C-alpha cells in the first residue's frame, strides 16, 4: 500500500505534459457533447476521467483517439500542437485506445486483431501470418498465460480473453499514451485485479494513462488524479491524495467542487 503511495508521489508534473487538451468543444446536431473542456496527462501518470453516462467523457477521449474530430480547441502532444482527425493520426503520436466495446473484428483470430491496420508483411509484401501468430503467442504468453485459442475467431473467446486481446493490441506497439474506456466493466474480480497490475506496470514504464469510468470505485485507487465531467463540461480536477471518494462523488453527481480540487468551467457556483 505504501508502495503505491510513493509511486503516486513520484509523478513529475514539472515538465511538459504528455497530452494537453485545451478548450475542446464538439457538438452533435446542436447538442454540446463536450463544452470547452481541458484536461492534461503527464508521463507515468494515471488520470481517471469520471462522470455519469452521457457526461461527455467518452466523446472527449474519442477526440483524442481520432474517432471524432473536434469543432474547436487544441491538442498538444509533448508540447507540440497535434492534428488528429482520424485514428491513424492518433496512433502515429503513440496514442492507443482500448475501447469499451473492445473494437475487435469478431470474425478473425487474435493475431489478425492484434495487428489490424499494422500487419507484418513478408518481403513480397504479402501478409506474414506465421510471424504475426508467433508474435501474438509471445505477447499473450506474457499478458495472459492461459490464453490458448490462437486459431479461433475472437467471437469464440471469453470476455476476459477478448479483453486481453484488446489490451495486447494497445500496448504492443510502444504506446506512450494509453486510453482505457471502462476497462473492467465486463470483467470478473480476478481479471479486474490483473488489469490493475498491468496499469501499475505500464505506469512504471512512463506511459501516461487515461482511465475512463462512470464508477469511482474502479479508478480511485489506481489514479493519481481525477478529472470529473458533467454535461459536457469539466467540473474540476484533483489529486487523489487531496480529495475523498465522497467528495469526488459530489463532483460527479452535483458538480460541486471540493476545496482540494481545481475547479473547471463546469463547477456549480452556489
Amino acid at each position, binding site marked *: 500500500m505504501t508502495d503505491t503511495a510513493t509511486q503516486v508521489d513520484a509523478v513529475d508534473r514539472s515538465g511538459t505534459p504528455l497530452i494537453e487538451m485545451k478548450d475542446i468543444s464538439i457538438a452533435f446536431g446542436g447538442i454540446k457533447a463536450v463544452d470547452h473542456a481541458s484536461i492534461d496527462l503527464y508521463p507515468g501518470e494515471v488520470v481517471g476521467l469520471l462522470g455519469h453516462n452521457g457526461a461527455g467523457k467518452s466523446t472527449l477521449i474519442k477526440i483524442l*483517439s481520432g*474517432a471524432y474530430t473536434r469543432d474547436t480547441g487544441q491538442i498538444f502532444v509533448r508540447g507540440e500542437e497535434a492534428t488528429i482527425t*482520424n*485514428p*491513424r493520426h492518433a*496512433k502515429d503520436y503513440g496514442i492507443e*485506445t482500448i*475501447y469499451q*466495446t*473492445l*473494437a*475487435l*473484428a*469478431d*470474425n*478473425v483470430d487474435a493475431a*489478425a486483431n492484434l495487428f*489490424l*491496420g*499494422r*500487419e507484418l*508483411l513478408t518481403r513480397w*509484401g*504479402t*501478409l506474414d501470418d*506465421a*510471424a504475426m*501468430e*508467433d508474435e501474438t503467442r509471445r505477447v499473450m504468453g506474457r499478458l495472459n498465460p492461459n490464453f490458448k485459442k490462437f486459431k479461433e*475467431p475472437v*467471437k*469464440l473467446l471469453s470476455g476476459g480473453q477478448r479483453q486481453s486481446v484488446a489490451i495486447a493490441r494497445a500496448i504492443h506497439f510502444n504506446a506512450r499514451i494509453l486510453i482505457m474506456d471502462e476497462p473492467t466493466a465486463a470483467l470478473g474480480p480476478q481479471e479486474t485485479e490483473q488489469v490493475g497490475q498491468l496499469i501499475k506496470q505500464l505506469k512504471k514504464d512512463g506511459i501516461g494513462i487515461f482511465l475512463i469510468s462512470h464508477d469511482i470505485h474502479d479508478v480511485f485507487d489506481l489514479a493519481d488524479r481525477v478529472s470529473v465531467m458533467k454535461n459536457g463540461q469539466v467540473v474540476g480536477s484533483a489529486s487523489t491524495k487531496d480529495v475523498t471518494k465522497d467528495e469526488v462523488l459530489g463532483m460527479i453527481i452535483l458538480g460541486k467542487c471540493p476545496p482540494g480540487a481545481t475547479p473547471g468551467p463546469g463547477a456549480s457556483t452556489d
Partner: protein
Amino acid sequence: MSDNTSATQIGADHKDGPIVRFLRATEVDTRMLGMIGALLLIWIGFHLYGQIFNGYGAFLTSRNLWNLSVQTSSIAVMATGMVLIIVTRHIDLSAGSLLGVTAMIMGVAQVWVLPDLLGLNNPLIWIITVAIGIAFGAAIGALHGFLIAYLGIPAFIVTLGGLLIWRGAAWWVARGETIAPVDSTFALLGGGPFGTIGATGSWIVGALAIIGIAAMLLMGRRQRIRFGFPLRPVWAEWTLGLVGSGLVLGSVLVMNSYLWPKGVVKRYAEANNIVVPEGGLEISHGFAIPVLIAITVGIFMTFLVTRTRFGRYVFAIGGNPEAAELAGINTKRMTLMIFSLMGGLVGISAVIASARLNAATNSLGQLDELYVIAAAVIGGTSFAGGIGTIYGAMLGALVMQSLQSGMVLVGFDSAVQQMVVGGVLIFAVWLDTIYRRNSV
C-alpha cells in the same frame, strides 16, 4: 516418441469418430464437402433423370461437362467479386446490367471503331477491347463505390438503380442493335472449338496444377514447422495431395475426351491443308480458354483475400466496421476499391460472355446478378458479413450452373427453371442460417 509426435498433431484425439477425425486431420471444411456432395447429387440426378424419362442420360458426358465448364466461367468470375461485397455487408444487384453495357461498349469498340483506326483484324484490337471492357467496368464500379461510401447511399439502392440504368444504357449504346461478329481473336476468349488449348496444352496445365498443389502442401508444412505450430498428420497431407491431383487428372481426361465435331475438323483440315486419315482426325477440345481465365481469376482473388492487407481489411470491415475504422483502416476507400474491383471482374465476365456468343446484345447478362449472388451464398458467403471464401463461391457458381443447364438438358421449360433457381436461392440461405446456428 509416438506420444511426442501425436501431441503436436491435429486430429490425434481418439474419442471422436473416424469421420470427425478425418475432417479435423485434413482441416477440410465440412461445408465444402457438403457442396461437393450437392454437386454430385445434381449431376447424377440429372443424368439418371435423363436416362429414365428421356431414354438418354446426357449430363455426365464429356460434351456436357465441357459446356458446363464454359458456361460457369462468366458467373464464377463475378462471384469471386461478389464475395468481397457481401462480406463487407453490401450487395451488388447491377452485375448483370453492367455486364450488358460493358459488352455493348466493347462490341462498338472492336467492330465499329477500332477496325477503322487500326485496320480490320489488327492483332491489337482484341487487347485494346479487353482493356476498355475491364477499365469501363472498374470505373462504373468505382462510381457505385463512391456513391455508397462517400455519399452514404445504401448499396442496395445504388445498385438497384444501376440495374435499371446500365440495362438501359446497354440498349442506348447502339440503339438496341446486336453487334456481330466480334473480332476473331477476341472470340477465342469465349471458348468454342478453337478457343481451347487442346490435349497437350491441357496435360501441361494439369501437370502445373499438380506441381502447384504439391508445392502448396510442402510450403505450408515447412512454414508450420518453422514456427512450431501443430502439423497435419502425414497421411492427411498425402490424402489431400492425392485427392487434389486426382481431381485435376480427372478433369483433364474429361476435357480431352470431348473431341471436335466432324464438320469443324473438316474445315480446320481444309484450312491448314491437312489430309484427314481414314478413321477421321481426332482433335480434343481440352480446357477452354474462358475456364482458364476463370481459374486464373480465382487464384488471383484467393491470393488477394488471404495473403494481402486488402483482403484482411475486407474481412475485418465485414466482421466489425466500427472496429476496422478505429484500427485506422480507411473503410470508405476500401468500399470504393471493392466495388471497383467488382466492376473490373464484371468487365472480364463481359469479355467471356460476349466472346462466347460471338456478339454483343443489349440483353446479355440479364438475371446474372441473381446467379452470382446465389453462387456466393451457396458457397458459404454470409449476409451477416465477415464470412466467405473465393473457392466456395466458384464451386457455388458450378452448382448453380449445373442446376440451370441440367434443367435445360432434361427439358424443363424456362418458367420452371426460374422457379427452381429462386427456390434454391432461398433454400441456400436457410441452410446457411441453420449451419451457422449449429457451428457457433
